[in-house]
């Protein structure tokens, strides 16, 4: 075991930053107000109600209409949004927040503390059926102290509570009561964001318009924080689910920005599209892919077998197979952009077939079939499974790839009914939430010491201590191998050269305020 220097990661970050900055450079000119920007989405909006949604695509759209109390800057630090300032009690069981004054909803009414109370009451109501309600269930009570002050009482100490309030998916949005109809549904979304909701024609488009009376937080644009002034008059977000058609639509200027540019077209972009007024940006992302081991299933319940698999796999090759080089190898749950990404987090085993074979012998492995469940609904999950199968075969492991439909794969994951499961997930800026997601592997049941370390990290705001705890967790997983992390993929976005100021954040969200059209 030794430390792997992940040079590819650093190189990728630099390339990504360069490409992303190339798109931003021209944003220095004075922005122009007006015009219509058509934004190509991979899928349609699933729910217009931010309190009921759990789909990432919904956040992409709705974050331009609604706002939470606090948000993230580029470094994923907490910054003010609807709340100006805040103060925790000494024991982290209550948080008092001062709301920004003069913030208005799109119906013209000022946003006040009662709206915060009402919004959290709705979000926490089981009848609202938010799939991720548990994220917020430490909130015991929300009280309006006066028109612009609100207090959150927590059931147990939670120093990381601000991350809950800054959560991007679902957005704990502050909404006015007036946005809900008599049946408790939202058909006309009203928020405080830079853009106003106009119309949603399912499978065709979502139309937003510039909120002229928008009052932006102070400071320069920084991630989701700072200057959020909208310049585009009309934002039309259209789902173009077929990726080849999406590229054609961008070439035809039927769409101005394409959220996900297919990696297979990068070569074509370099040779041809870059000369046709198309700009490509590649941003290192925080979404991550991995394989889970079934710790309760025969063969994979043996730690020596799992360690053997770790020695059989070459993470570089798996990453290349899955993402054609547009991803950063990362054996940690913590992305390279995080302040918690230490040298220890880069530690993993290097491919060593001799060690793998020795461990298989120690595990008493006799060629039993080991099933890797995966799906073709998300191509990288399938591609990495195929790469794993071939590398495991070289070590003498009889692995079979079992392709399932997405709903069936999800059911197996929740039921912990798998030997190996090839998977991936969206960004988790806070490592605690990343580790909590990995509980699906049953690692917390089999290795309670990992859960204890996660809980301890969740109960402190001491960064140095948290860093140390996360390092300990990673090194523990190096020994127990309940999962193997592979990579974080880059976000490839393409847009027309007259689109200025456009950027995608490392958490995968495209920011459309501050964007303007130079045509």
């Amino acid at each position, binding site marked *: 075991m030794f430390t792997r220097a992940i040079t590819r990661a650093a190189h990728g970050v630099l390339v990504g930053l360069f490409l992303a900055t190339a798109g931003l450079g021209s944003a220095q000119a004075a922005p122009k107000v007006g015009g219509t920007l058509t934004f190509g989405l991979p899928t349609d909006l699933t729910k217009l109600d931010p309190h009921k949604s759990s789909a990432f695509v919904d956040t992409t759209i709705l974050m331009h209409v609604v706002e939470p109390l606090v948000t993230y800057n580029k470094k994923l630090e907490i910054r003010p949004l609807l709340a100006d300032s805040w103060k925790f009690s000494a024991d982290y069981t209550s948080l008092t927040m001062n709301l920004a004054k003069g913030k208005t909803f799109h119906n013209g009414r000022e946003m006040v503390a009662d709206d915060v109370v009402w919004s959290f009451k709705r979000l926490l109501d089981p009848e609202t059926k938010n799939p991720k309600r548990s994220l917020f269930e430490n909130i015991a009570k929300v009280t309006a102290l006066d028109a612009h002050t609100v207090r959150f009482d927590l059931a147990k100490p939670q120093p990381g509570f601000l991350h809950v309030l800054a959560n991007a998916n679902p957005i704990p949005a502050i909404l006015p009561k007036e946005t809900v109809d008599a049946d408790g549904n939202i058909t006309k979304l009203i928020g405080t964001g830079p853009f106003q909701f106009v119309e949603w024609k399912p499978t065709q488009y979502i139309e937003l318009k510039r909120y002229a009376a928008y009052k932006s937080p102070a400071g320069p644009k920084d991630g989701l924080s700072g200057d959020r002034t909208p310049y585009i008059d009309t934002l039309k977000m259209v789902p173009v689910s077929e990726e080849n*058609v999406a590229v*054609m639509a961008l070439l035809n200027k039927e*769409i101005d920005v394409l959220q996900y540019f297919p990696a297979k077209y990068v070569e074509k972009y370099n040779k041809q599209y870059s000369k046709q007024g198309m700009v490509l940006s590649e941003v290192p992302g925080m979404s991550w892919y991995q394989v889970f081991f079934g710790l309760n299933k025969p063969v994979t319940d043996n730690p020596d077998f799992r360690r053997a698999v770790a020695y059989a796999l070459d993470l570089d090759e798996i990453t290349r197979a899955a993402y054609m080089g547009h991803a950063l190898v990362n054996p940690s749950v913590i992305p390279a952009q995080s302040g918690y990404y230490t040298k220890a987090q880069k530690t993993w085993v290097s491919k060593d077939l001799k060690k793998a074979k020795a461990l298989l012998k120690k595990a008493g492995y006799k060629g039993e079939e080991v099933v890797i469940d995966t799906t073709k609904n998300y191509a990288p999950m399938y591609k990495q499974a195929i790469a794993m199968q071939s590398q495991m075969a070289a070590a003498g492991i009889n692995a079979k790839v079992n392709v399932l439909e997405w*709903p069936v794969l*999800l*059911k197996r994951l*929740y039921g912990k009914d798998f030997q190996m499961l090839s998977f991936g997930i969206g960004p988790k800026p806070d490592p605690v939430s990343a580790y909590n997601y990995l509980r699906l592997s049953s690692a917390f049941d089999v290795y309670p010491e990992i859960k204890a370390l996660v809980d301890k990290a969740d109960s402190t705001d001491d960064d140095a201590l948290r860093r140390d705890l996360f390092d300990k967790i990673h090194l523990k997983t190096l020994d127990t191998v309940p999962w193997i992390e592979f990579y974080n993929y880059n976000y490839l976005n393409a847009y027309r050269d007259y689109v200025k100021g456009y950027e995608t954040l490392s958490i995968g969200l495209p920011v459309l305020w501050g964007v303007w059209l130079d045509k």
Partner: protein
Amino acid sequence: MLAYFLKRTVLMVPTLLLVALMVFLLVHLIPGDPAIVMVGAEADPAAIENIRRSLGLDQPLPIQFIDWFGRLLSGDFGKSITSGIPVLETILERFPTTLVLTTLAMLFSVAIAIPSGVLAAKFRNTGKDYLFMLVSLIGVSVPGFWLGLMGLLVFSVQLGWFPSSGYVPVWQDFWQGLNYMTLPSITLGFFMAAVVARMTRSSMLEVMRLEYVTHARAKGLSEWTVLLKHALKNAFAPTLTTIGIQYGMLLGGAVVTETVFGLPGLGRFVVQSIYGRDYPAVQGCILFIALVYMFVNLAVDVLYKVFDPRVKF
């Protein structure tokens, strides 16, 4: 004729009942849990259980069927699990798009397939015949997905004649709507044309061997009159059946074409609902499609008499 029409309509009721039962059972037999699909990979078990309860998925299957079927009898197809919108509302919103697409595709295919089939038959075993049949063979063999993409590449990206994405209903703006529908209709119609052309050719060849055609020729009628006035009319009955079957199938959703061109049709809705394990949506759509299919078949059977007077009802 009226008695036949009524009899067939009444017979649809038990067929639909059977379809309803089969659809319900089949949909529920597919592995996967709608509640889990709804919440994705990061939900807590309590939320999943809450959603399952609110959707009635915690009830035994017979109870779920009685509940769904009871509401169905009063015209209530239920609400989509994914969107919460009434299923019938979505079907009625999406079906016109599929109807327009399929009808335009059918018109296009008939316009090129019937003349092609007749000409291929007239010039049988010559270079012209081989050319027509080669084109139709390509039409049958080429995947719709690939043909759609190639169509977009040539006519949209290179020539700029048609848009590559977006949609405007023809009833909202006829000419703009037609502009959006032309390429998808041709793509879809190409496959249908190939099937119909082959059927027309073989029916024509069969009919042209019959004595009445020889008799018509012996009367001194021109070859075109014999072909179009005498042979085609009789040869058209089996072709009509093929058109009817194809049309009915496509009305159920031209999934591939709708997906490539991003059209908000019924086919895409069915597929999305299957992926999302949206039981009420899948059940409602399949029942609706079955109903449409039955009516198309009935229409074809009634039209049969027009082309074949021997048919008695």
